[in-house]
C-alpha cells in the first residue's frame, strides 16, 4: 500500500471544528450561490475562458455543455478556487474567492462538494476513510463519522464496501464513492465534473439517478459539467421518485411544461458562452452552432 497518505486521521493538535451538517446555516444569504463576472483565464498562450459571466441561484442545477477542450472542467475548478483566473470576479456564497487566501478558502470549501472526472479517490485509503476524510479532518467523533459514512454509502447504494480499496472497485463504483464523499457533509453546492464520463449506459443512468436524487431530495445547488447530451436532458426532463427509488419522466404541468424548472443550461464554445437559459430556450434556439451541436 502506498504511504503517500499514510493516515486518514486529523491533525492531532487541531482545535475541534464543527463540520457542516443538515442543520447548518447556509452561507451567503439569499444572493446567487455562484457568480462569475468577466472571468478570463489563459494557459501559457492559449486563452481557455474569455469574459465568462453567469450566476447560479440557490437550489438551481446548471448543466455546463460544450465540446471537449472548451474549458468546462476549468470553469468548475475556478468555482472551487482550485485555480485562479487571470481577471474577473468569482463569488461563491457572496464571497469573492479570486483574492481570498487559500487558507480561508479551505473553510469555505466545507460547504462545497466536488466529484472529479476520474473520481480522485485517495488510493491508499479504503472506501470508509475516503468518504470520511473530511469528517476525520474536522475531528468528528469516530462513532458519528462511521454512522454518517454508512448513510452516505447507503445513499449511493454501496453498503458493504467500506473496507475495500479504490483499486478493488469498478469505475462506476468509484464514481459513486466519490459522490458519497462529496455529499457526506451535506454541502450547499455540489460540482460534478463529467460524472458519467467513460461509464457504460447502465452505470451512467445509476449515476444520473443519484445526481437527480440529490437535486430533488436535498435541493442542493449544483453545477454539472458534461459533454453527453442525453445525461443533460435526462436531468432536465426527469425527477426522482422517492416512492419507487427511481427516476420518472416529468408529466406536463398546467402550462404545458414537462421539464424541471430548476435545471438550466450553459453552453461553452471556444472559451465563450454561446447559450445560457432553460431547457425550452435551448431546444428552440435558432443559433446554427447550437442546432448542430444538439442534432
Amino acid at each position, binding site marked *: 500500500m502506498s504511504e503517500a497518505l499514510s*493516515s486518514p486521521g486529523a491533525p492531532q493538535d487541531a482545535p475541534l471544528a464543527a463540520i457542516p451538517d443538515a442543520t447548518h446555516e447556509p452561507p451567503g444569504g439569499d444572493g446567487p450561490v455562484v457568480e462569475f463576472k468577466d472571468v478570463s483565464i489563459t494557459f501559457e498562450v492559449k486563452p481557455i475562458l474569455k469574459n465568462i459571466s453567469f450566476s447560479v441561484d440557490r437550489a438551481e442545477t446548471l448543466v455546463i455543455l460544450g465540446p471537449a477542450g472548451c474549458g468546462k472542467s476549468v470553469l468548475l475548478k475556478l468555482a472551487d478556487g482550485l485555480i485562479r483566473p487571470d481577471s474577473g470576479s468569482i463569488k461563491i456564497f457572496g464571497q469573492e474567492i479570486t483574492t481570498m487566501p487559500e487558507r480561508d478558502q479551505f473553510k469555505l470549501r466545507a460547504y462545497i462538494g466536488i466529484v472529479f472526472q476520474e473520481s480522485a479517490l485517495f488510493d491508499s485509503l479504503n472506501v470508509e476513510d475516503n468518504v470520511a476524510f473530511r469528517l476525520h479532518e474536522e475531528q468528528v467523533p469516530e462513532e458519528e463519522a462511521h454512522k454518517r459514512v454508512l448513510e452516505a454509502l447507503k445513499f449511493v447504494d454501496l453498503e458493504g464496501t467500506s473496507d475495500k480499496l479504490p483499486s478493488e472497485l469498478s469505475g462506476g463504483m468509484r464514481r459513486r464513492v466519490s459522490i458519497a464523499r462529496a455529499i457526506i457533509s451535506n454541502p450547499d453546492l455540489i460540482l460534478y465534473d463529467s460524472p458519467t464520463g467513460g461509464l457504460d449506459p447502465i452505470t451512467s443512468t445509476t449515476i444520473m439517478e443519484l445526481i437527480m436524487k440529490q437535486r430533488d431530495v436535498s435541493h442542493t445547488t449544483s453545477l454539472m459539467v458534461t459533454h453527453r447530451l442525453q445525461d443533460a436532458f435526462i436531468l432536465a426532463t426527469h425527477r426522482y421518485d422517492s416512492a419507487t427509488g427511481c427516476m420518472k419522466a416529468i408529466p406536463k404541468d398546467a402550462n404545458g411544461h414537462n421539464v424541471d424548472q430548476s435545471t438550466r443550461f450553459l453552453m461553452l464554445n471556444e472559451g465563450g458562452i454561446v447559450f445560457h437559459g432553460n431547457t425550452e430556450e435551448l431546444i428552440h434556439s435558432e443559433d446554427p452552432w447550437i442546432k448542430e451541436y444538439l442534432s
Partner: protein
Amino acid sequence: MPLPSPENWIKQKVAAVQDYSILTGSALSDIFSGPHYWADVFTQMDSIGVGSMPIVVLTGFFTGCVLSLQSATALKEFGAISKTGGLVALSMVRELGPVLTGLMISGRNASGMASELGSMKVTEQIDAMRALGTDPVRKLVVPRVIASVIMLFFLTIISDAVGIAGGALVSVNLMGLNPQTYLADSYRSLVYGDIVQGLTKPLFSGFIISTVGCYFGMKTTGGTQGVGRATTQAVVVSSVFIIIVDFLVSRVMLSIFGN
C-alpha cells in the same frame, strides 16, 4: 525539434525558484505553527529512517573499509600507519558519513516522495484534498520534512559509527594494526568542532531531500511520463544541492571552529 527560447528558459527557471521558495516557506511556517499530523510524521520516520537503515549501514561500513585500506597503504609508506584510525574517523564524521548518507537517502527517498506525490498530483488526489478543505503542504510536505531532518541526523550517526567499525575491521585484520591503537587514535583525533560539523550537515540534507522531493512531486504534470521525469529531477537536483550545501556548511564550520 525547435530550440527553446533563452528568454522562456530563464523565465521557467526563475518561476521554479520562486515556487520552490514559496513551498519551503509554507512548510517552514507550518512546522512552527499547528496543527500537526503527528501520525503521518511517525509513519514517515519509519519509512525514511528504519526503511533506509540497510543501505546506510552497508554504505557506511564499506566506505570505512575502503577508506581504511587506501589510507593505511599510503600511511604505511611514511611509517604512520597508526594514524589510520584518526584519518578514517575524521573523514567519516566530517565528510563521508553526512554526504554519503545524504546521497543514499536522496536516491531512495527524494525519488519516493516525488513519485508518491507526483502520482497523487496527476490523478487529482491533491486537488481533491484541497477541495476537501485540507492543506496538502501541512498534510503531505510537513511530515516528510520533519521526518527527514530528524532521521537523517540519526542515520548519519549510525553511518559514522559503522564506517569507523568497518575501518577497524580492515585495519586490524588486513593491515595488522593493533585495535587499541586504531580506536584510541580515532577517539583522540575527533574534537567538538568535527562532531558539530558532521551533525549539522544532515539537518540541511534532510531539509533539501524532503523539500526538493515534495516540490517536484507537487509540480508534476504530464501523466505517468511526468511522474518518471519528476522522480529523476528530484534525485538529480537534491544530490547536487546536498554537495553544494556540504561545501558551504564546511566553509562556515571551518571558519567557526578552525581546523
